[in-house]
């Protein structure tokens, strides 16, 4: 029998308690769990987070100032680098904004081709976000499976425009080339293969008890607060408001298609995961419908003052060469107008506010970036939770640093 009487007396040493009630913990800017460079300074009461303050701007590249110097075509590579997980979506959004400025209408074929590319970009972004949510809760397998599918999407981009990630895809008024037979073959293969991979990914995480325990009730946001904070995209839809720019103000013939806008209830991490998962299924359906019902027509619009001539003529004749040079260097003028045009980005409403003064470059270009607007609400979402829940909330709201700082 142990003699434990020695330990029954209370310790006589005095313990000095720190006078300040809360600890400060610095999360970032370099941290394995922050997906991008941004810093959170957390005020903690033991393990519970009491308050948080963010510092961003660690990758501020002054896009808006650069855009005042660049002609309209040279801004497309800048928009690539906003949300670099879904670059073609930003490119097409910018081209739609310039078309609104010039008053150009695109035909149905171009619209359907654009829908295919934008939905591919949306799938690409949601695949990263959902798999990284899995990684942050400890499930690394889904990430590796899903990245293989993203390689296939990169191959399709390469076939369409030559680049894997920062695509600079399309032209004002359409595309520079039609979808080649290889691209269509790869698209069809993707459409048969991706649903199987998505189902396998869902069996790993969607009804996984550990994942559900970790994500249900974590990082909630109510619908009224979300609207006040300016949330858009999957976060607002997970909170219960069905605002989707593709349905509200249809652009690029989205109103020809019938797709569900998924809506959650509590706005917590599990709802965001499910909303993104459902949006991926809807995107697959959209791509399939657009590919099957693609009408005949030209892949570009005659915007004589703006449309780049075809490459065969540029390399062989004189006038198209001069025209090409003048367009890229921005010698062509635009009307004096201002325009706000929004597309449904992977994270929410991506808006372009262009003020044109008739010169070769925009007078002012402002990007309405969804990440920047909803990251303000992060302290409210994590108040009262543990660090591990805060990390999971951060990965589920899909902060892309390029879009945050621009």
């Amino acid at each position, binding site marked *: 029998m142990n003699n434990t009487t020695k330990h029954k007396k209370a310790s006589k040493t005095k313990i000095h308690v720190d006078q300040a009630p809360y600890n400060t913990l610095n999360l970032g800017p370099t941290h394995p769990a922050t997906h991008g460079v941004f810093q959170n300074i957390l005020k903690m009461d033991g393990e519970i987070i009491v308050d948080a303050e963010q510092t961003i701007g*660690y*990758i501020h*590249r*002054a896009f808006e100032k650069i855009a005042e110097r660049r002609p309209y075509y040279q801004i497309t*590579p800048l928009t690539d680098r906003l949300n670099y*997980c879904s670059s073609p979506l930003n490119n097409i959004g910018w081209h739609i904004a310039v078309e609104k400025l010039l008053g150009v209408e695109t035909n149905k074929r171009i619209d359907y081709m654009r829908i295919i590319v934008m939905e591919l970009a949306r799938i690409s972004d949601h695949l990263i976000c959902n798999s990284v949510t899995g990684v942050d809760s400890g499930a690394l397998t889904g990430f590796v499976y899903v990245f*293989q599918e993203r*390689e296939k999407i990169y191959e399709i981009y390469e076939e369409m425009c030559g680049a894997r990630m920062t695509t600079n895809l399309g032209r004002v008024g359409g595309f520079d080339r039609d979808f080649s037979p290889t691209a269509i073959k790869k698209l069809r293969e993707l459409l048969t293969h991706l649903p199987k991979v998505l189902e396998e990914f869902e069996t790993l995480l969607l009804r996984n008890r550990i994942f559900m325990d970790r994500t249900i009730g974590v990082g909630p946001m109510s619908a009224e607060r979300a609207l006040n904070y300016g949330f858009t995209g999957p976060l607002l839809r997970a909170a219960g408001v069905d605002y989707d720019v593709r349905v509200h103000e249809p652009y690029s013939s989205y109103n020809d298609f019938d797709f569900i806008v998924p809506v959650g209830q509590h706005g917590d991490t599990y709802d965001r995961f499910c909303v993104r998962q459902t949006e991926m299924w809807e995107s697959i359906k959209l791509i399939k419908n657009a590919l099957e019902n693609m009408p005949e027509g030209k892949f570009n619009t005659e915007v004589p003052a703006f449309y780049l001539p075809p490459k065969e003529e540029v390399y062989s004749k004189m006038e198209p060469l001069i025209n090409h040079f003048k367009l890229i260097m921005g010698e062509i003028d635009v009307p004096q107008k201002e325009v706000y045009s929004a597309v449904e980005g992977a994270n929410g409403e991506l808006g372009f506010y262009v003020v044109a003064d008739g010169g070769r470059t925009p007078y002012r270009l402002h990007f309405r970036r969804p990440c920047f607007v909803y990251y303000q609400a992060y302290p409210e979402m994590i108040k009262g939770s543990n660090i591990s829940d805060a990390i999971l909330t951060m990965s589920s709201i899909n902060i892309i640093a390029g879009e945050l*700082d621009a």
Partner: protein
Amino acid sequence: MNSINEKPSYQVVDPPEGYSSPGFFATTLDKAVGLARKNSIWPLPFATSCCGIEFMATMGAHYDLGRFGAERLSFSPRQADLLMVMGTIAKKMAPVVQQVYEQMAEPRWVLAVGACASSGGIFDTYSVLQGIDKVVPVDVYVPGCPPRPEQIIEGFMKIQELVAHESLRRRYSPEYIALLKSYGIQLDNKYTHGL
């Protein structure tokens, strides 16, 4: 495409120069250490923007960086050998890069991936650092915007060459100490005391 019954042809890697006989292989210490080090580099992926996503693709199953020995990514600089800076470094972030570099233990190498890390890239603006070689000494630059995974792997292989052929005394040499001093990084060990 080879049929599944044909044996794939491998290239056997040559051992370093040395004298071998049944039962032993003799070579110089730095060659042996270089061989061991180059095949087990632990990188620190300092991924800030678009090049970081290409790095994630490089670590994926298609372009597997793990087969070069870099399977174990270390996010703590204390345990890392190679600092891979991928993405734009803004002036706000520059002191952080230097702080992370200072925490790494010798021997350490730096790989600048992407045009933005090498020279500022397309962002010649007031807020972007025009190349990380303004704050840390860089060993290999990988250009590209973003570089393809094959290019990142080639940059990594060049780092492996540097690692394999490095002299064991390099980190204590006066040239190296002067190089770090030019960046404002003070080394503090018995060889540099007083320099």
